[in-house]
Structure formats: structure tokens, C-alpha cells
């Protein structure tokens, strides 16, 4: 809860608070005027829904909380609530997101403009509650828009921007706000939460284009034969394409009203004169910003290109990057087994036919392994000097306690001789 009251010094209405990333999600949900929140608890998301439940119970938020019995149900209730014309939100993580996968597709297919926070966490087995992006990357092809945030303040602003983007009639696709487990979800930082009235002006109550209305009965999600199905899917791609423009407009307007800018599709840092660009998402991008500063002090021309929206994918922005830098290092906190890091694949796909700039892939931070700026700096130096292989699992450790997993890995490599 706010611990300092109004103190932005500018006479504005924002509240400065010292809160966890998870609680900030809840405060943003309240500020956004969300009316229905179905949710099921999972570490590390629990504080989001606990806070929402507490705000509602305490009379600080006027919304329906549905304590569903599974994530599959959470997403089903989210969809149905949205289709009545109410503004609906949910939050989940990892196994929860995987468990609702069917409904994740459903939400996009039935064009429910909902926002869901996903606290990025590894998928087991082995059980691991810590951060990586495998959960949301695995939902890549569902039709949702995906934001990856890099700071506490961006958590709040992305939830509010998210509703404005998804509810735009030219988009009407659900939106996932992804924040890194523990790095953002459980750490406290001060942040600014806009007042409800101020947000209401920016984001008026949801006006649905279609809904469940007895005065105008419509059948939603009926049987669609092959003669029509492809067009329904094309319309989802049109929504994604339209979102590129809507995202830019919303982020620009948001900056005008609230004075904060986190980038739109992407965020660039010292790219203009850079020879090598580090491409990253989420808090690894924040870590990489430090790397840029450190390496620039060494005289290396390094820049940061943070992918903020993974869906729609920033194709044009990446093609422009390909024209401006001499090499690219992509950091993936996920892995597409049998291939490579997902961002690496996608980035190369966007560049194909437009740029021959060499691209390297660094796989780090899976299952919450700490990624230091020193490690990224070291790998970036190697990338510059041409020592880095195409794909590098960059953070394997050799300490006595980790030797068991490492030795098993070596044994497994030898199995085929």
C-alpha cells in the first residue's frame, strides 16, 4: 500500500510507493479499473492475487474476485467475464500458464481483450520456482501480445498501457505482461502509481465491440468449417499487425500524460554509434545496460536493444538495427529444444534477406541462475573478438557442489561415442 502519500512534488496525483513488483501489478490493476479478477495461486505469482483480494476485501477496489480451482478455469472465467463486456485481468506463472494453454489459445481465438500478468518462471521437472522465460515463450504462437518488462515502474505502466492496446477495436487480442520472477516480483523498489481518476481519463471503461447481450443475441465460437477458418486466423494476424501502430500511439500518449517512457516495441540504449548490439528481454536487458556502460569505458562501442514486445515481433526495428551495427549478441533466457534460443531464431528470421550481420546466441539465466553483468560483459568481449561460438551456454559453473550435474552432462554427451 502507499507508504508516502502524494509526494511527487509536481502537484500531480500519482502515489509514490515502495512495493514489490507483484504488489505493483495489483495496484496497477486497481488503477486500470479492472472489474473481474479470476485467479489461482502459484509461486511466484501469489502476492499479485493476495493483494487484489486484500484491496477488494478492504473496500479499496470495486471488482469481482473469483477464486477458481485451477488455471484452466482462471483463463476460462477470464474469457467469459470479458465477453460480458467487463474489464478482466488474471495473473499466473510457469506451470499455471502451461496448464491453461488450451484457454490461452481460446482467449485469442475468441478475441477477448484481457490482460494477464505472467511472472516468468522455469518449467519443471525438476521443480524450479525461479526465473526464466520458457513459460511465456512456449505460448508464443497463441495469438497473445507479449510485453517483457525490465523495471518495477514498467510493470505498472505496462498493465495500464496493456488494456489500452488490447481493447483497441483494431487489435482485440489478449495481452500478457511478463515480469521476471523474484528479480522483479519479490524485490521492493519505489515506483509511481497513477491515480484512478487520471487513469480513467486515459483509459475509459471498456466498450466492447461484441459481447454476450440478451438484447442482441450472438453465438460466439461456433463451428467454423475449412471454408471460413483460415480467414478467422488471418484476422488475428491483422490484429497483431495493427497492434504495432497502436502500441506506438499508446506508449507516446502515455508518455505525454504520465511523463514516463519505457520504449514502445523496443527500447534502445546507445545504439546509434554502436558496433555491437546486445539484444535482450526483461531484467537481463537491465543488466545489459550496465554492461554497455562498463564496456564503453573500455572504449568498446556497445549498445543495448531491448525487445519490449516479443509479440507482435519488432520486425522493422530489427531490420533497422541490422543496418546500423556490425554484429549482434542475442541473450535468450529460454531454449527451443532441437533448435536454439527463441529470440535468436526470430531475430535472424527478421533479418533474413535484409542484413548479413553476424549474430551470436548466449543462453543464460535458466531456472533463476544469477546472471552478473561481468558474465555478459565477458561474453560480449568474446563476441567482439570473434571468439564466441554461434550458440553458447554461457553460465555453466564448475564448483564442487555443481560438479555432479556437469559430470552427468559430459557422460551424456559421450553416450553415442
Amino acid at each position, binding site marked *: 500500500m502507499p507508504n508516502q502519500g502524494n509526494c511527487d512534488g509536481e502537484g500531480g496525483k500519482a502515489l509514490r510507493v515502495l512495493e514489490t513488483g507483484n504488489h505493483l501489478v495489483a495496484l496497477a490493476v486497481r488503477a486500470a479499473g479492472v472489474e*473481474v479478477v479470476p485467479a489461482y495461486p502459484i509461486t511466484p505469482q501469489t502476492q499479485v492475487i493476495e493483494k487484489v483480494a486484500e484491496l477488494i476485501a478492504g473496500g479499496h477496489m470495486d471488482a*469481482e474476485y473469483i477464486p477458481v480451482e485451477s488455471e484452466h478455469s482462471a483463463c476460462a472465467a477470464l474469457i467469459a467475464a470479458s465477453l*460480458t463486456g467487463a474489464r478482466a485481468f488474471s495473473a499466473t506463472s510457469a506451470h499455471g500458464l502451461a496448464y491453461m494453454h488450451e484457454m490461452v489459445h481460446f482467449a485469442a481465438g475468441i478475441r477477448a481483450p484481457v490482460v494477464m500478468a505472467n511472472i516468468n518462471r522455469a518449467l519443471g521437472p525438476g521443480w524450479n520456482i525461479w526465473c526464466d522465460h520458457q513459460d511465456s515463450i512456449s505460448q508464443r504462437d497463441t495469438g497473445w501480445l507479449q510485453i517483457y518488462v525490465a523495471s518495477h515502474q514498467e510493470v505498472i505502466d505496462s498493465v495500464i498501457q496493456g488494456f489500452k492496446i488490447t481493447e483497441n477495436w483494431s487489435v482485440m487480442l489478449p495481452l500478457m505482461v511478463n515480469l521476471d520472477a523474484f528479480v522483479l516480483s519479490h524485490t521492493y523498489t519505489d515506483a509511481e502509481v497513477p491515480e484512478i481518476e487520471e487513469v480513467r481519463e486515459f483509459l475509459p471503461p471498456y466498450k466492447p465491440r461484441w459481447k*454476450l447481450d*440478451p438484447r*442482441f443475441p450472438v453465438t460466439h465460437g461456433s463451428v467454423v468449417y475449412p471454408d*471460413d477458418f483460415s480467414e478467422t486466423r488471418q484476422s488475428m494476424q491483422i490484429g497483431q499487425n495493427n497492434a504495432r501502430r497502436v502500441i506506438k500511439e499508446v506508449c507516446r500518449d502515455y508518455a505525454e500524460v504520465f511523463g514516463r517512457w519505457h520504449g514502445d516495441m523496443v527500447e534502445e540504449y546507445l545504439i546509434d554509434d554502436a558496433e555491437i548490439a546486445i539484444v535482450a528481454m526483461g531484467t537481463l536487458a537491465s543488466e545489459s545496460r550496465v554492461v554497455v556502460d562498463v564496456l564503453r569505458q573500455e572504449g568498446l562501442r556497445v549498445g543495448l536493444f531491448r525487445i519490449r514486445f516479443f509479440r507482435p515481433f519488432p520486425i522493422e526495428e530489427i531490420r533497422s538495427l541490422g543496418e546500423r551495427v556490425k554484429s549482434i549478441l542475442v541473450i535468450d533466457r529460454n531454449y527451443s529444444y532441437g533448435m536454439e534460443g527463441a529470440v535468436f531464431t526470430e531475430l535472424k528470421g527478421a533479418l533474413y534477406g535484409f542484413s548479413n550481420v553476424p549474430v551470436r546466441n548466449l543462453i543464460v539465466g535458466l531456472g533463476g541462475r544469477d546472471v552478473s553483468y561481468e558474465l555478459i560483459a565477458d561474453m560480449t568481449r568474446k563476441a567482439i573478438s570473434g571468439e564466441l561460438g554461434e550458440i553458447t551456454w554461457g553460465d555453466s559453473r564448475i564448483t564442487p557442489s555443481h560438479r555432479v550435474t556437469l559430470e552427468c552432462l559430459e557422460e551424456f554427451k559421450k553416450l553415442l561415442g
Partner: protein
Amino acid sequence: MVTLKSLPEEELFLAGSTACHGCPSSLALRIAFKALGSNMVLIVVASCTSVLQGSYPLSAINVPLLNIAFAAGGAGASGAVAGFKALKKRGEIEEEPTVVMWGGDGGTYDIGIQSLSGAAERETNFIYFCYNNEMYSNTGTQRSGATPLGAWTTTTPAGKHQHRKDIAQIMIAHRIPYVATVSLAYPLDFYQKMQKAKSIVGTKYIELLAPCPPGWKFPSSKTIEVSRLAVQSGMWLLYEHENGETRFTAATKKIIEGKVKKRPVKEYLEMQGRFRPVLEKPEGKEAEDLLEKEVTESIRRLKGWVPEYI
């Protein structure tokens, strides 16, 4: 007194349905719509009813309808109920529409039981309607948790070896305010139970035995006759459960009170092709006896909820 002639004339189930001939779900929708009126919303989980609406861009259902995933019935209804509550608070609507979830036995007994149970435990204000055709008819007649002992399905080619679940009793165990069973052969009993369900706040569970002509292998003109014999033989018991008490209704009441003689289960089984494989075998008699025993047990269990028999 409700009579067939006094039922509302307005049809919310329009022409152009793609249902099979003699489809029990389409007959049931017609009666349910008449009882509930047009200020309602229908949620339909994957089932024959997803298919019989007609196909995009046309629909034979003249109430707002949300088709939702197989396992998501109770949750979909929960979301809709919460959404309408929010709209009413916002002043967008004056009266919250009746939310009705419509699913088959697969979507209720098997894949949907978690979602249904959750919605009931949360005391969600909606009607859950299960049309139980005792098999996965939509996917081509596979076994479900509602398939009775002895019945042939494509996944029980030698007849099912296990008894069916008694899910209405599971719903009673949720302490919801209203549970009722209905039959197409007793439309006024059906109509009145739907109207009562509409008038009660909380979770209401209504279950219809839905004889499926292609799945059960009987002529499509016999849906009502098979429905009637199911009740007369005790294989489908008609009752309602309210405020912790059960009340037998229609023909079941007369059988329990001894005013009408219960017909043998054998007659009911012989009307349907699905029991023929087991009845033709030596163990056919055993299956018949086990089903008679099941009927006796079900009646005894239900009587435990009826004040005059306790």
C-alpha cells in the same frame, strides 16, 4: 397448473439446427428456453450441442451463446456471472441475465467435473444443465463415466464392466440449493424444475437422461419412448433435491409409492442395440441383475434424503 398448452409460444430454438433426427439435446433446449425466457446467456462446452447450433455464420440459437472448451463449463459460467454482476454495478444493465451452462456427460462427469465442482463450491449463481447421453456421442460413441454397466460403446466393445457414477449425488454433496433430474417423456415436470431453478439463487444442477438414437442404436422416432421406459424401469429416477431434502416426482414418485409397478430393466435394455452384445452372451443375465441391483441401491440411497422414509 402448467399444461402443455399453457407453455410460452415463443421459440428461442430456431429452425436450421444441424442436430441428428430425434436428438434429445435439441428437444431439451426447446423446453428449457420456454421455461427460462430470453434474458439468459448460454455457455456450451464441447459436445453435440456445439455442433447442432448450425455452423458459422448462422446459428439456430436465439440467445447469446458462448462456446467454450470441454473442461471449462463451470469456470466459463463463473466468469459470465461475475461479468454481469460488474455490468450491473456499473449501471450498464438493470437485471443480470440467467446464466445457463449446457454440457454432456463427458463435459460433466469426466473432463468437466473439476470446473463444475469449483463453481458449485463457490456458490456461483447459475444453472448447470447436463444432458447425459451416457457416452461421448459427438466423437462417435466412446465410453464415459456415465456409461451404464453392460453398454456397448466403441471403446467398450464387449460391454462396459463398471457401473456409472451418480453425479447428481455428488452435486447434492456440494450442498447446493437445488439438484433435479428430468426426462423428455415428462416435459411438464422438466419445465417446472427449470422454472424453479431459475427462481433460486446459487448453483442449480439439472440432469437430463438423453437417449441418443445413433449412439444407443434405436430408431430416431423412439427418443421419447426410450426416455419414458428409462423412468418406468427405474434406470432413470426423477426427483428434486432442495433444502437438504429429496422429493420424488412424476412417474418415479408413483413407482416409489407403489401406485404404479416398476417395469423390469430388461425391457429397457432390449429396446436398445447398445445392450445387445452383452445380452446375447451368457453373462447377459448377470449384467441385467447387476443393473436391477443398481436401481434398488439408487432408490434406497435417495430415500435417505426423503423425510417420510427416514
